[in-house]
């Protein structure tokens, strides 16, 4: 069982590193976003290895299932093509990325070699922390105030975004109509 876990950890962490590099280096924005989805899924797998089932599933639902779909949605809608990338034509970027990747890989292999000998046993206590009951218990008793504050903060952020998007001038016209109107009038006058 332990060998399986180490194997799964190596596989998942290598995948996580590779997909995060893919996210940064890919020139197409859509491919970047898809790499990021894969990255989030591997992170969920790593959480599962730590017995944090609730966190793993919430990771998939919230990040991979909702937020990244919206990201992808916006990217596809705007049709962002082949972004001008700073490291587009420079070999230095690739070399730097390769070195960082190799460094990370070395770190992972090193820590694994260290762990393989005396990987700490997961105690019953540690396993109990990850369950839904345990998280709910703590979240709605000890950490109720931070939870509520975060909720209010997020709600006000959403309402603020709505306000900016729905902003209208005093005469009721949406903001971008006013901005473009003088140019249109000039063109009409010229013709």
């Amino acid at each position, binding site marked *: 069982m332990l060998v399986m876990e180490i194997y799964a950890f190596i596989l998942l962490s290598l995948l996580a590193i590779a997909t995060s590099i893919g996210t940064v280096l890919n020139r197409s924005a859509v491919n970047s976003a898809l790499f990021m989805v894969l990255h989030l899924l591997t992170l969920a797998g790593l959480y599962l290895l730590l017995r944090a089932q609730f966190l793993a599933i919430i990771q998939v*639902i919230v990040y991979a299932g909702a937020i990244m779909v919206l990201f992808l949605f916006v990217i596809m809608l705007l049709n962002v093509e082949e972004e001008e990338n700073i490291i587009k034509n420079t070999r230095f970027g690739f070399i730097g990325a390769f070195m960082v990747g190799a460094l990370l890989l070395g770190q992972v292999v090193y820590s694994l070699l260290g762990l393989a000998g005396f990987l700490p046993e997961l105690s019953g206590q540690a396993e109990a922390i990850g369950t839904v009951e345990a998280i709910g218990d703590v979240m709605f008793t000890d950490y109720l105030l931070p939870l509520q504050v975060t909720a209010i903060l997020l709600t006000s952020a959403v309402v603020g975004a709505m306000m900016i998007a729905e902003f209208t001038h005093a005469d009721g016209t949406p903001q971008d109509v006013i901005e473009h109107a003088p140019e249109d009038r000039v063109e009409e006058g010229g013709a």
Partner: protein
Amino acid sequence: MMSYIVLGVSVALLVSSAAIAVYAERRIAGAIQNRYGPNRVGPLGLFQPVADVIKLILKEDVTPSAGYRFLHTIAPIIPVATAIMTVAVIPFGDGLYVSDMNASVLYLLAIASLGVYGITIAGWASNSKYSLLGGLRASAQMISYELPLGMAVASCLLFAGSLNILDVAASQETWWNIIRNPLGGIIFIISAFAESKRTPFDLVEAEQELVGGFHTEYSSMKFGMFFLAEYMHVVINSMLITTFFFGSYHLPFAGAWLPELSEPLKMALDVSVFLAKTSFFVFFFIWVRWTIGRFTFKQVMDLGWSKLLPLSIINFVVIASVLYFLHNGLS
């Protein structure tokens, strides 16, 4: 051991049920529209799905030359995979399940939220306007209806007091959730229709506007996999409606009158009750498709965000408070 048998049988059942659902869809559509439907291949046209699959396999597989070959190829796999992954937690009878997971309801929601990627990627990788519009509509629709779906499921969990779908099924032995929580049931059924992209929510592939929607540029077995996935999702959603709201494998008010049965007898009864209910809801999906017209996009978004979502939240809060006061008194 038991769980492996259930896994094998249920996956085989799910894949073949898609073929049966296609045949049923065409025959029922024929009956509703006062015509025959397929009746040439085999007795009563029963071998029509086989003929369809052979046709699909023999067709040429075309990838748009300006598309993205890799994404175009993996896109059809995603909805099929997510449909099959769902089977892992559905209880088919008392003790007949593949895995007993602590948070299986959340697992179901997580898997359902991943299914949208297949369609979005298919729409984008085809490099076609119609496909892209279909994919965008699909992602907007599925994200919107995930919320009321989740809230409706949450209102069911209140009765079971657990996130384990086995407990949800067991808690409905006497009272089905549709009786205890009718509003939640209606919201869940509507959202399930939207999630499986069936009429009246099928504007993802509205022929009149988008040719074929996200699968316009797909042919051969890649198209076949989208087709398979659509019907698998119909079957899966029927199973979920049954499990969450229509008493899972229990007969109506079974706790009140059903005597103790021997184990094999109980198992056979459970499975047949579950399959009968599932088949009814598959029929219901088909029935609605050939009865109601398609909504416009604005209507779909309006229904999801400004009607179903507030309703489902109110429903949840009311049920939670009623249950709280029932348990703790009005002190």
